[in-house]
Structures are given as structure tokens and as C-alpha cells.
């Protein structure tokens, strides 16, 4: 298998231009999501979904900050481009009964639309609410990290279009190093609220292939604070189920034998 590839999305330099959303839709030929004014800052596409594989969140904050000994209201407008996390332990892949979801040679997680039967098991399995079924054809869709472009030696469309390098694509190890350096720099400049999200292999999904630098709590961006692969307990559940089956079978056998004895 080739090197594991990933995204590092540094939200501290995101300017909210949405070039990633548009480039993604252009390259992947996704349908629009309808034309609805949502009155939620500059976000009118709402969330990741079957037809939105990059989504820029806009969070308007007014925070009281202590400046020169007195409280001052400081405006902050957080922008962050969200995407499928391409988890190390991907529940969507675990539950897929047809093998439509598979792990690529780049260690990313991709749905094959010609295999997907639309069962939808993957949808509740995702701890981030990323993968979704399209209303019209029923099949599940999500970010492929531009698998086709990667096969051609190109970076994904969103990273290519990002003017400020908020979205960086590359070998995951390298991105983790870069992110750690960026975080240290921000901390040194006094931005102690900056943190990485999804970069740790020790988290509930074994580390995300697409991780983030955030400037606030994950919940502020609509991200789960402590995501856990929903199939984490499957092996033990199967063990319990197996044990239960064995004991049930045993009980049946015992009952059967007992009845024979009694007779």
C-alpha cells in the first residue's frame, strides 16, 4: 500500500471563500443542494451531505476579552471547511454489507457507487454524520479525497483551489508534523485557544485521515468533541452474542437431555 494520504485543514487561515465547496462540486459533478436562504451567517449549504462533500461553517462570535485591564467585546468570525474524516477505524466501511465502501491504496475510505445498494447502514454508523444517501437515487455518497485525481497524481480539487492553503493535502505523517509546528507557532503568538482535532491516533476513531486546527471547542464548529467509531463494540458484542448462542444451545441441549432422562 502507498503512503497514507490526508487533509490538514488549518481553519486559522480559512477566509471562507468556499472555493473548496465549488471546486469539489465541479470536479465530482455533484448536484446543487437547492437555493435556500438560511439566515445563518454566510452559510447556505448547512452541513456535509450526499451532495456537499466540503462544507464551510461560519460561526459569528462576540466574546468579552480582557484588554488592558478592562473587558472589551471582540468580534470573531470563525470559518472552517469540513470534510469526511477518512477514519483509521471507519465504521461506515465496517457495516457496509456489499463492499461498496472500501479502503484505497492511499488509506482513504471511498464508496463505489456502482456497488452501493442503498441499504443506508453506513449513514447512522458515521460518528460525524458525514455520509448520507441522496434522495433521488437512494445511494450513499461522500468525499473520496478525489480518489480519481490521486490516481492521476493530482491533489484533491478542494486543496488545489484553496487560495490560502487552509486545506493542505499530503502524506499524513508529514501533515501531522506541519500541524504540530503551526500549533506551536500559534500558541507562541498567544493564541492558546488553538487546538488540533482528529490528529491523534489514540482517539476514538484511531485518528482521522482528515484532521483540523480549530480555534475553539469542536462543538462550536458542529463537530463531536469525542467521536468514537460506532462499531468499536462490535467484536465484543459478537463475543457476547457468540457466548450467548453457545449457552443458549447448551441450555437447549440440557433441556433436551433432561427430557430424555425424565422420559
Amino acid at each position, binding site marked *: 500500500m502507498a503512503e497514507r494520504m490526508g487533509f490538514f485543514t488549518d481553519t486559522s*487561515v480559512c*477566509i*471562507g*471563500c*468556499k*472555493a473548496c*465547496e*465549488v471546486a469539489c*462540486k*465541479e470536479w465530482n459533478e455533484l*448536484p*446543487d*443542494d*437547492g*437555493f*435556500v*436562504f*438560511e*439566515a445563518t*451567517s*454566510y452559510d*447556505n*449549504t448547512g452541513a456535509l451531505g450526499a451532495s456537499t462533500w466540503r462544507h464551510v461553517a461560519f460561526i*459569528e462570535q*462576540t466574546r468579552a476579552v480582557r484588554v488592558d485591564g478592562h473587558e472589551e467585546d471582540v*468580534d*470573531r*468570525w*470563525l*470559518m472552517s471547511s469540513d470534510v469526511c474524516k477518512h477514519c483509521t477505524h471507519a465504521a461506515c466501511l465496517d457495516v457496509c454489507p456489499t463492499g461498496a465502501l472500501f479502503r484505497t491504496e492511499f488509506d482513504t475510505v471511498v464508496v463505489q457507487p456502482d456497488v452501493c445498494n442503498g441499504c443506508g447502514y453506513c449513514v447512522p454508523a458515521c460518528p460525524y454524520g458525514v455520509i448520507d444517501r441522496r434522495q433521488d437515487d437512494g445511494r450513499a455518497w461522500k468525499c473520496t479525497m478525489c480518489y480519481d485525481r490521486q490516481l492521476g497524481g493530482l491533489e484533491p480539487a478542494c486543496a488545489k483551489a484553496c*487560495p*490560502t*492553503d487552509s486545506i493542505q493535502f499530503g502524506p499524513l505523517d508529514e501533515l501531522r508534523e506541519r500541524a504540530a509546528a503551526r500549533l506551536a507557532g500559534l500558541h507562541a503568538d498567544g493564541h492558546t485557544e488553538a487546538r488540533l482535532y482528529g490528529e491523534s491516533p489514540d482517539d476514538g476513531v484511531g485518528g482521522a485521515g482528515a484532521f483540523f486546527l480549530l480555534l475553539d471547542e469542536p462543538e462550536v464548529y458542529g463537530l463531536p468533541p469525542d467521536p468514537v467509531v460506532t462499531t468499536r463494540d462490535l467484536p465484543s458484542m459478537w463475543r457476547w452474542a457468540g457466548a450467548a448462542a453457545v449457552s443458549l444451545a447448551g441450555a437447549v441441549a440440557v433441556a433436551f437431555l433432561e427430557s430424555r432422562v425424565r422420559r
Partner: protein
Amino acid sequence: MAECHPVGFQWVMEAKARGAKVFHVDPRFTRTSALADSYLPIRAGSDIVLLGALINHVLGNGLDFREYVLAYTNAATIVSEDFRDTEDLDGLFSGFDPETRTYDPASWSYEDGAGGEADERGESARRQTEAAGAERFGAGGAGAHPAPRTDPTLTHPRCVYQILKRHFARYTPELVERLCGIPETDFAELAEAITANSGRERTTVWVYSVGWTQHTVGAQYIRTASILQLLLGNMGRPGGGILALRGHASIQGSTDIPTLFNLLPGYLSMPHAHRHEGLDDYLEREGGETGFWGNRRSYLVSLLKAWWGEAATEENDFCFDYLPRLTGDHGHYTTVMGQIDGTVKGYFVTGENPAVGSSGGRAQRLGLANLDWLVVRDLTLVETATFWRDGPELETGELRTEDIATEVFFLPAASHVEKEGTFTNTQRLLQWREKALDPPGDCRSDLWFYYHLGKRIRQRLTGDEIDRPLRELTWDYPEEGEHAEPSAAAVLREIGGVGPDGRALSAYTQLRPDGSTRCGCWIYCGVYADEVNQAARRRPGREQSPAALEWGWAWPANRRILYNRASADPEGRPWSERKAYLWWDAERGEWTGHDVPDFEKGKPPGYLPPEGAKAEDALAGTDPFIMQSDGKGWLFAPAGLADGPMPAHYEPHESPLHNPLYHQQANPARRIYHRPESPYNPPESPRFPYVLTTYRLTEHHTAGAMSRPLAYLAELQPELFCEVSPQLAAEVGLANGGWATIVTSRAVIEARVLVTGRVRPLRVQDRVIHQVGLPYHWGWGSGGLVTGDVTNDLLPIVLDPNVYIQESKAMTCHVRPGRRPRGRALLDLVEEYRYG
């Protein structure tokens, strides 16, 4: 900048990553503010107060870069005794004629040289500026005395330095707080940062766009920034300057090779029917004889030779008489009034959508409806082409389709990827682009359209004398492909110029006044040097110096920073190692460095002009501003501006406040149209208490014809909305996500409501001022997947007197909750507001 120039903003982010401090001044907290180190909310229309106070801060505390200022600006120059300041005349400079509402700039001139002899050049400058205005000047502007009287101690009460000091003394931090709404502490932080980051070791750059230009004092906004940057020594140096961001691809190119009525290519002014008798007369009146504009005969003659070839001879003034003549203001808004009045019968509209995109949309459409014929060329069926069947005036009953006699021709246009040619960006960089695919169907490039239109017109010409200019025009480009597309490269080569041997020229200094050279635009001379399309060069930045001289081609002569002589000290040494860019190599006897010198390569720093020298020879080796007749950066403009030699704060034409600085409320020379089609809100009117400002969003382009038809863009910003503060929403009863009706004396429109803390009420002159923000991307048509009311219908038609740009960044309005009325009731509501 992040909103409207996200790709360019990457360089701001790079600078920030290297430690640059980024300030953002804007009426709203935008995507740019979100990334800036410091955000300063400002009341729209008050920027001269802020910039003037920065100038006052510099002058009052002696923080100017004195060595630079003394050597490279006109700070020491003594101004005429007759000059009177706004501070003396309560908001007017000397020379104002209230009848014509224009200035006679004679009293602004430099004091005459020794003996006070009536100087020929001074006289010529005065004549050029009688009633200065947009139709009077090329960028050459006016000439001034090349060697005026000076006081290097800067203590003479009439030297420019002292005049500036007095003029800006009232622009204090307290005034900034009271007029702009910027707290004194925020101002202090900005003032400290720009002065700490200017001088030998450091530079500060200002970046602006139409937020500065679209005002009745727009040109003076830029002047104020220029004064500040000159005082701090930030012009002509790396990391310095004043960067104008353009609103479209190649808008820079469309002023270089102009679509403006008052200019010929290369900022030569268009001749005037009543003021320019012949070539000699034109050249004499169009500026001084010193500095590089002193060679304008070479520039103009080479242009005439490019256009009329062999027919242009010394004997016939090189066909100068063939050029069209101005008779006055033929700008956009005056043309629209001419349409309404029936004096303008036909109209070409290419790549523009005035029915939606220009101020006072109703007046625009009434003009269109009164034409004989209208030609519209665009990518989609824009509102300007369909107003007669679906415009808002049909709904209100003001127009009926059957009454509109305008014959409309719509011609589909090729997009930028469907044709080859150049874009000229804000950095004056020409970049060639290849054609990616053929245009579909009947779509054709603009080049194709005008070329073939010209050919067809020429087929119909007679032997009459009146047809001679068109008959003799050179109109013979190679044609390519099945549609006979003229060769864009051949056009570029003609623009770039050829010498007597027919070979491409390499720089404008090779142009001659005798008709032996041909050049379609003197500043572009050399773009085809060595018979190579220099604009098509694409050597990656990592393979060359930081100035990247082999990426594309920058006018003039591939110079990347203008006036870069100023990056070295008077002796020709870099101001500092850190900021070294260009320097004098005494051994080789030439200027050298990272860029092409914007100076004569072999002119030593110690050069002094001999008596009576002309053109560039009249400038000393320490005069970096080579286009000026005195080679100096003008802190005080003795001529060339229509509304004063220095900036002064005036309120916008429509303002809720009075001007506390002067009795004079607004720019006295602003261009006003008293027309029933587009009336004004009275100043300080309680009926229109809110400040209105308009702008663009990242997701859309101008009037929306290039973005509303595209699903991926339309879904990102699907509806017209207004941005209001929570306080204003509470005051008038607006709900987030609901509807608002916005009213001015011109129109009523409806928009969805976005309540946001990013728009803050400002405390200005002891009252709370609310600002309402409206993007202007929507209209009823253009094949849009999303449509909406036309924001620009709300706007007044009132213009800056220098360049005739409309004031679209600071107006007044009223806001009501709910949707607007329809039909006749809509007109009644406008009437109700208009007359109170």
C-alpha cells in the same frame, strides 16, 4: 480583500505569516476583518478624516521620513501667495466659481521662479486646468514649473510642508472618534503601527478598492493616502505603495487601452473639439515639457502611425484630425441622461449590465427605453437586453412593452476561456491566456465582433471626405479558423510597437516623433520585444528572483515596482540592506538591482539638468517620479485635480450628519444631476436616517450575470439580503431570516434580513448611527437560477468631479419590516418618502 479578491488575499496571508500586522478598516466586519490583526469599524464616507488624522499625526510629531521627503517630494516648494486653504475659506479652496461649481486652479500654482517672470509652462498648466474635469486630462495631468522656488528648511510659511501641517491640524484623533466612530485607542494603535513600520528598514502598504473610489471625493481619498505614503517614504519601494484592487479581470487593461470616453491608449487625453486645433496645439496644451510626458509627441505620433499607417504623414499632422473629438462630458451617467432626453439614439453595451449594475437603475432603464437601437453583447441574456419585456417599470405601469420602440440586438459573446488574449492585472502585469475551447454556437469574441463590424462598415464606405478616416484606417489582421477570428497576437504586436525596420520594439524610449515608429499604446511598448510574446512567459517564480521578471510582462518596460529609483537614497545607495531593491553601480555607471530600473539606466545620482532641458533630461538624478514635470512626488497638487490641491473632508452627498469641519457640507465641485428620474435624499433628513453602503460577496460577480446562472455559486448565496445590527433590527422590527423593505428617493426594494453583530452601530457626533449593508448581485433575469430586487435602483446619481465615478458606497435610506408593495402602491410609497 478576502471578500472580493480571495486569490490575491493569499499574499496578505503570506505577509501575515512573516510577521506583518494587518489592519482592516471597513463599515462592516467582513471575511477580511476576520483574518486581520485589528479591525476598525468606520462610518462609510469618512475616510479622509481617518487618513488626514494619520497625516496630522506624522506631521505633528515630526515622524516623516525627512531625507526622503526633502529629496523626493515637493514638500519644500513655495506655493503662490494667492492660494487660500479650506481652513481660511470655510471649506472652499481659492478659485471656486459658485456659478459653474468649478475651480480655477491658477492660485494653487507654485510661486514663480526668480524674478516672478510670467513662465510659459506655468501659463500652459493654468490653461489646461481651467475648469478641470474628467474630460480634460490624460494621466499626464498638468505640468508644473520644473524648478520652482524651494525652502529646504521647510519653515517658509508658504512651503508645501507648512501648508499641509496647517491644513491637517484639525484632523485629530478626537475628530476621528467623533466623525468616523473609531475609538481613540484604536486610532493610536494604527498610527503607531504605520509609523513604526515605515522608514529606512521597513515599509507599509495600503490596499484599497472601490470602497475608497466610489465617493464624491473618491479621487481625494487616494490623494490622502498618497500624501501619507510619501511622507512616510513608502512609494517606489518594495513592500510599499498604494495598491488599487480592480473589480474585474483586466479592468486595468481597459483603462490602459481605454474604454473610457476621455482617454486614448496610454493615458493620452482625447482631443477636445473646441480646445485643440491641431496636433501642435494639442501637444502644447496637454502638459509640461519636462519629465517623460515631455515625449508625448513620440507617443501620440506612434499611435497615429499604428492606426493610419502610410496615410499618416508629417504633412497631414499624422492624421490627428481623424481622431474623434470631445465636446464635453460623455461619461456613462451623462450619456444616460442624453438617452432620456432623446439626444442619444444608439447604444453599444458589451460585457456590462447597466439596467442592474449602474446607480439609479430606473433612470438607466428609462434611458434604454428611449433609444432607437441597442446592441447588447454578453454571455447570458442580461437584464439590459430584456428590460423591455420584464423590467420592474412594467410591473409599476410606468412603461408598457408596446410603447418601447428600442430595437434590441442581442449578440452572444465568447467567455474568457473561449478566446485568447491578455489580461492586465492590478500590478500592470500582462498575462497571455490560451483558448481552452471553441465558443458554442454563435458566440464570438469581442475582438471578432469589432473587427468584422469594422470590415462590414468599410465595405459600405463611399469616396466622400467624411469616410476618409475609416477608409485609411489600418484594419488588416491575419484571420484564423472557420469564423475568421482575427489574430489576437497580431493585435498585441501592433500595440507593442514596431520600428522603421518593421521589427518589434523593446521599450517606449525607442519611440520617435517623426513617424518612423508605430505603437498602439506607448506604455505597452516592448510587450512583443524580440518578436516574442513577452506576456506569454511562464517561468515559475521558484526558478527566478523574487521580482519574477520572467513571468508575464509588466508595463512599462517590464518594471515591477513603479518609481523604484526611490528605493535608493539620493546618492543611489539602498535605504537599508533589508529593503535593498535598486541601486547605483558607480563602477559600471548604471542602475542595477532586482528590478528593471524605472529610471534612465545610465543617469547618475549626481546628474543636474542644464538650463532649458526638456523631457527626461530636465529631471535630476535624484528625481524618481519621472512622469511628473518636476520629478517629485506631489504632497500638494498645484494642478490636475478638479476639487482642490489637497483633500478635505466633506460629507457624502447624502448624509445623516452635518459637516462639523466646514460650513461647506459636501464636495463643492461634485457632479450633480437635478433630474426627476433620479432625485436625491436631502442631507440630514429624518426620513432617511440610516447610512446605506453596497458591496460584493465572494460568491457572486457584479450584477450576477456570470454567477447567478451557475448552480454551484447561486446555492451559496441564493437571495438578496441586507445586513443590519441587532440594535437596528430591534429599532425597526426586523427579524433574522424575515423580510425588509429598503427605501430611498429613487426606489423601494425588498431583501431578506441577516441580523449580525458584524454590523455595529457607531457613536458619531454624539448620536448613534446605524449602517445598512446591501450586496448588489441580484436582478430579475440574466438566466439566473436565483433572482432578486436591484440594489442599485436605490442609489443616487452623483459623481466625483475628477473621474465621474458614482457615489455608491455612502448614501442614506430608510428600512421597514416586511415585503415591499407591488405595482402602483410601490410608486406611492416612494412618493410618500420623497416628499415627506
